[in-house]
């Protein structure tokens, strides 16, 4: 059994493909990774934040991109969540980071998605966040969550 006195986190890579408008994969991949992290005995708060980042990042790819991939790397010190997509790119990253700002189409908003909370949620939950985007090509998002660091 895993406990606090002996905790071993191996190097793990988890990968999911995301197709356009495949919204279910966001919660499905987040649920699966959550379960894996629970089995590793990782702290509740870290798991909660990681799950939110995975859900929102994968959701952004499903809503906006043509296709993409989600990769999660679990190391002894840090969890990295990476999404890479082929898509329209983000025109104004600063604006996209603002709560309530969204470029999601109306029918997607009616489903309760695209409320302009995705990137702000990711930012709030991560210790480091880098977004690389090229208009007309795609976006790469990298979020890091440190396992042994206080998150403010």
């Amino acid at each position, binding site marked *: 059994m895993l406990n606090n006195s002996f905790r071993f986190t191996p190097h793990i890579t988890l990968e999911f493909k995301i197709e356009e408008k495949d919204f279910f994969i966001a919660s499905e991949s987040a*649920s699966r990774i959550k379960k894996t992290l629970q089995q590793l005995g990782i702290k509740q708060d870290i798991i909660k934040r990681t799950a939110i980042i995975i859900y929102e990042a994968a959701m952004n790819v499903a809503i906006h991109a043509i296709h993409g991939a989600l990769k999660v790397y679990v190391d002894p010190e840090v969890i990295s969540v990476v999404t890479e997509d082929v898509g329209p790119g983000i025109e104004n990253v600063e604006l996209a980071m603002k709560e309530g700002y969204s470029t999601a189409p109306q029918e997607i908003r009616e489903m309760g998605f695209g409320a302009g909370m*995705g990137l702000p949620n990711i930012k709030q939950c991560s210790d480091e966040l880098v977004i690389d985007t090229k208009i007309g090509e795609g976006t790469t998002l990298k979020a890091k969550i440190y396992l042994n660091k206080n998150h403010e």
Partner: protein
Amino acid sequence: MTLGEIVKELGLEVLTGNINLNKEIKSGYVSDLLSDVIANIEQDSIWITIQRHINILGVAKLKDVIAIVIPRNLSVEEEVIKKAKEEGIAILRDRRNAFEITGLLYNMLKKAQNK
């Protein structure tokens, strides 16, 4: 307070059979924005929403939601009910609106916690 007790006291319609009726409800949340729910709902909650598409089940599963309550007797597709049963998430329905259901539930849960 168990989900079964809540169902009985409020006279809620159960769409998913016996699923989760014996589970303890700790808290509740009301929102139709899925990002808001993902960020803020607590574990073992009852969630009130008018969203009824299949993706609410993904959100519920991720956040360990015990039951979803659909207000105003809005229709729920058979496909969603079937998937909810598979995932072990209860779907309930009521004639009242979200405001009324939330008020009733809030008072019930508060009273149960103070006992």
